[in-house]
């Protein structure tokens, strides 16, 4: 669905455009049909520039891309016809009603049955009762819902969501997130940029951590594994330091440490190593209270990656 090959974007800034700013550098990625892809990165990382390039709003300086099977730079109108975009700011026509706003975009996207499409999305997003009200009177959450409806009005193959929940209150953010989850079940291809790492973890099949260039790309689970391995915590009544040395010698164990009354064991495959460790601990008289896997959040992965990309300082 989305295939990019070393796309870069350089802006000329300054009064006479003599300074170059590299916003995106050699971005190569593929997003499959029906996949929800999370594009994470700090402010100014080039996420919005990337979305603008992939939606044929701005041209890449170098590189090639195919969006929904169309060549970027050569078939831009077709790309625009087949993608939907939720821009960072909803950018609605405030004086016009919700219905009018959607009707305008349905016409611009050449939707065959405008009234039906408009009614469908107004109802789906809970805006039916307010359809004749000026958008200027809407809350932030309602505007965002309307912007989502606008992005979907032409039933695009690919949906680009640029910070879909930024600035929304928790309730509105939840509504938008639930709707994205619903879209996911419909098999839509979604490319979303976000700061909300929990959101990315919950919604995305794969995430890419980006800062001018792609730092890493994988499923949240694999990223955890890649970066931190897997850690299992054995909560014990009491810990004997001798056990650390003994457990370290077992197969598949890379590191063992004591944290309070816990034995924290880094290993490749908990399913294989856990029974052996438990058997050993029971054998040496340890009282096991609880065993659980220590999960690194996507936030920790993200911070680690961004820190590395900045040369170790955040």
């Amino acid at each position, binding site marked *: 669905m989305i295939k990019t090959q070393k796309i870069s974007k350089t*802006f000329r800034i300054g009064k006479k455009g003599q300074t170059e700013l590299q916003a995106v550098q050699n971005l190569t990625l593929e997003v499959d049909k029906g996949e929800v892809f999370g594009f994470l990165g700090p402010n100014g990382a080039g996420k919005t520039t990337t979305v*603008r390039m992939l*939606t*044929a*709003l*701005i*041209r890449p300086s170098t590189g090639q891309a195919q969006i929904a099977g169309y060549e970027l730079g050569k078939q831009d*109108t*077709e790309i*625009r*016809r087949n*993608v939907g*975009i939720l*821009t960072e*700011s*909803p*950018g*609605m*026509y*405030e*004086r*016009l009603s919700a219905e*009018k706003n959607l009707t*305008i*975009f349905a*016409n*611009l*996207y*050449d939707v065959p049955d405008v009234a039906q499409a408009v009614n469908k999305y107004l109802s789906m997003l809970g805006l039916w009762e307010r359809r004749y009200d000026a958008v200027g009177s809407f809350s932030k959450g309602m505007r965002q819902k309307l*912007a989502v409806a*606008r*992005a979907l009005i032409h039933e695009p193959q690919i949906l680009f969501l640029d910070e879909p929940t930024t600035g929304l209150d928790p309730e509105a953010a939840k509504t938008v997130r639930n709707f994205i989850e619903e879209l996911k079940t419909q098999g839509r291809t979604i490319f979303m940029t976000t700061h909300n790492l929990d959101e990315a973890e919950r919604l995305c099949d794969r995430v890419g951590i980006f800062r001018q260039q792609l730092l890493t790309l994988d499923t949240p689970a694999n990223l955890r594994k890649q970066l931190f391995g897997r850690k299992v915590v054995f909560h014990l009544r009491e810990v004997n330091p001798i056990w650390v040395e003994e457990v370290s010698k077992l197969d598949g164990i890379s590191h063992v440490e004591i944290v309070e009354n816990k034995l924290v064991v880094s290993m490749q495959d908990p399913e294989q190593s856990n029974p052996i460790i438990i058997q050993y601990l029971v054998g040496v008289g340890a009282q096991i209270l609880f065993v659980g896997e220590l999960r690194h959040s996507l936030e920790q992965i993200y911070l680690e990656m961004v820190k590395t990309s900045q040369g170790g300082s955040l």
Partner: protein
Amino acid sequence: MRHIRTIIDKEWAEVFKNRMVIMTMALLPLLFTAIPLLMLAFTGNGSQSVDLPAQSSGLPAGFLAACEDMNANECMQVYLLNQSMLMFMMMPLMIPTTIAAYSIVGEKTTRSLEPLLATPITTLELLAGKSLAAFIPGVLITYGAYAVFLIGTHFLKISAAVRAYLLSPVWFLGILLLGPLLAVIGTMFAIFISSRVSDPRVAEQLSGLVILPLMLVLGIVLAGLLVINLWFMLISILVCALVAYALLHLGTIVFDRENILTKWK
């Protein structure tokens, strides 16, 4: 055509919800129609200069050539009509400029330009829609105001010579052809400015400058250095048609979506 119609519809829906814009659009034609009617009424045949020759009217010598076989009063009326007709020609330039000046920069400030440019609309369709949305009301209002003015003159006591001058092809060409061409020029100029600046007020002020050449012509007419005749009108139409065509062509070239989206704060 569907995209162009949609843009026109959208622009009108937005513009006509703004009472201030409607007031501005209504006030100008009202004034430009009422003032010449009042002038004709107050310089009617009851004036003392009815029997005096045109030469005694005190009007600039260069203008007197247009007053063949007219008395001083009639010549004065024709002189005033000259200015009023120029005002009528300015009307389709002034009304669309107000709308067009806001058209792009307004979308920038409300952040609605990005979703709009993300649709399959082409630059030509977008510019055509925006221009027509500004151009059509301006021209229709001018035609309407001119019709009201002509009807109004029927209720005034004006001589056959003045009426003949009023209904000469020069002014019909001016109002019906030159006016709309000036409107195209004004609209394109305003859209060009609108896409380059980041503040709607700046756009409106700069776009207003398009009226300056016409004000210059008005000044020359007032000084009696220029009498607007058929030749002058035909040449003006030709020149304006060429300028309008060039601006329409140039508009699509200089409208750089990427710059507009990324280089404004």
